[in-house]
């Protein structure tokens, strides 16, 4: 049974339909990359999975629970978390408080241990634990955002364009950390502009276009697919 199952959902904002009968699944411990042109509905799919918008039709199941109508604060308790593309840190709060908020729904008993684990993964954050996150650079903020999500000890992380707006050096660093997080057994669903790079590290990928499923397959498979390359990877 897959960890997450999106079963032919249709949804959108207001009257505007963005996704039409989109299906996807994520197995335990997988990296799944969702690619497609701008406006294909990649971010919308992620928002629907996380309960920020509710599907009009179709169901979303996480483990055994139907989460289609659940609110984000309830979904978080099921150990799924979401890293938005923009404003994904509390700028007024210190790095440490940001991390603590990541574990808001958990018991505080081993809070310090969990924080230390994040600081091991991102030593840079340990140095700046008392700094407000708003005073940090773009790359450091992305670390805070991912660190806060990891505080939940999630089974699935949804990453919305983790490399957006970062310099090439930072991008490879963030991608390297994503691989490492996945090696710890955490499933990852990511939406990326940087399609080639993200397919290279993904176990499987989905290509969305116009709010519909187009192609799906293994990460390598999609990379080598001439059709996908021509249409969505820019040659």
């Amino acid at each position, binding site marked *: 049974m897959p960890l997450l199952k999106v079963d032919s959902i249709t949804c959108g904002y207001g009257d505007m339909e963005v996704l039409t009968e989109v299906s996807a699944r994520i197995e335990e411990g997988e990296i799944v990359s969702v690619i497609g042109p701008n406006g294909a509905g990649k971010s919308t799919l992620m928002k629907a999975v996380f309960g920020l918008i509710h599907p009009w039709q179709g169901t979303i199941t996480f483990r055994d629970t139907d989460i289609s109508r659940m609110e*984000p604060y309830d979904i978080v308790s099921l150990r799924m978390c979401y890293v938005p593309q923009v404003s994904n840190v509390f700028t007024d*709060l210190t790095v440490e*408080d940001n991390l603590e908020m990541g574990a808001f729904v958990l018991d505080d008993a081993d809070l310090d241990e969990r924080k230390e684990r994040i600081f091991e993964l991102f030593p840079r954050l340990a140095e700046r634990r008392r700094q407000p996150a708003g005073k940090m*650079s773009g790359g450091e903020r992305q670390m805070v955002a991912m660190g806060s999500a990891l505080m939940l000890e999630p089974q699935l992380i949804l990453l919305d364009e983790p490399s957006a707006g970062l310099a090439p050096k930072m991008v490879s660093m963030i991608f*390297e950390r994503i691989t490492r997080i996945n090696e710890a057994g955490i499933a990852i669903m990511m939406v990326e502009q940087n399609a080639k790079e993200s397919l290279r590290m993904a176990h499987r990928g989905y290509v969305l276009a116009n709010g519909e499923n187009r192609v799906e397959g293994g990460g390598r498979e999609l990379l080598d697919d001439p059709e996908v390359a021509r249409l969505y990877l820019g040659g």
Partner: protein
Amino acid sequence: MADTQYDETEDTAPGTPARAAGELRTGERIREALQSRTAMVVSIVIILVLLWWAAVAQDVSQYRLLSLTVWGVMLGGVIALGAIGLTLIYGVLKFPNFSHGALVTLGAYIAYTIVIWWPGQSPAIGPFSFGWDLIVGMVVAMPLVGLVALGLDRVVYRRLRRQDSPLVLFAMASLAMAFFVRSIIYLVWGSDFHFYYQGRPNPALDLGFGVRVQADALFILGLAMVMVALVYLLLGRTKMGKAMRATANNPELAQVRGINTERVIAWTWIMSGALAAAGGVMYGLASQLRPEMGFWLLLPMFAAVIMGSIGNPRGALVGAIIIGVAQQVSTAFLSPAYGPAVAFVLMVITLLIRPQGLFGGPGD
């Protein structure tokens, strides 16, 4: 494995140019200097010195001036209790709650009812003019007013929130609620002035250096400080407090993190109402109870909130004390009725020099 090293400047993508100081034009530089925190602190200091100087020029003795200043700090404590609630609500819900003054009044009158109902006259505690009945009154009024604030939110503001109403509707609704609560106070308690303890002596204590202050004033100041400190600990150390700051900072992300923002909002209302009630009781003790008392405190509270940067409780405290002192010292040579005008002047100066207040960043 070592963390990848990189330069501060290199890690944002090209296209977001760094604004170097040298690139600013002279005009911008002058403007920036005028709008700096230093400029604002300097102008506040100048205003306070002018007030003191005006008092001295009117032959007010320096002892009285010193006492007035101490009184001002006390009044600042009372304003701060109201202003902190106001700034918290603004921080989380982003609207100016004009009904906050009415909550202050309501708190004062609920405590008054307890004092009236108290069997017999409660004897005064130590050097103070009040007895345990007032303390009990305050302890009862705080949660009650907190619940009233929560009730108003459930009935009015939450509906507006659900409909994503524009800010101006929230502000108008809160103004309407101010009149509503005030009318209820008129209905229940009448329009007469009241004192918690009619005619009970409250002699001033000599603090040395010729400073004479009533024991009650010291109590009010002490209690206000303790409550502000508690709010501080709550916001800085507890999970709920951090969740409040997180929700104020970024409500969408707060939800993503699993924070039930409606619950945070509820607690913010309760806290804000309770602090307003405490402020009301202390204000009533320092002067007298009248249905308009909170309304007159509204302007100084807003001035304090704006001066200390909207949404910042520490700023509200600092702003409140500055405004309290300015108001009290001005009574040395002005009718106390001009108190709110003094607060208003300070508010306008803040808005002109540095609209984001003492503790705000340049982009706020």
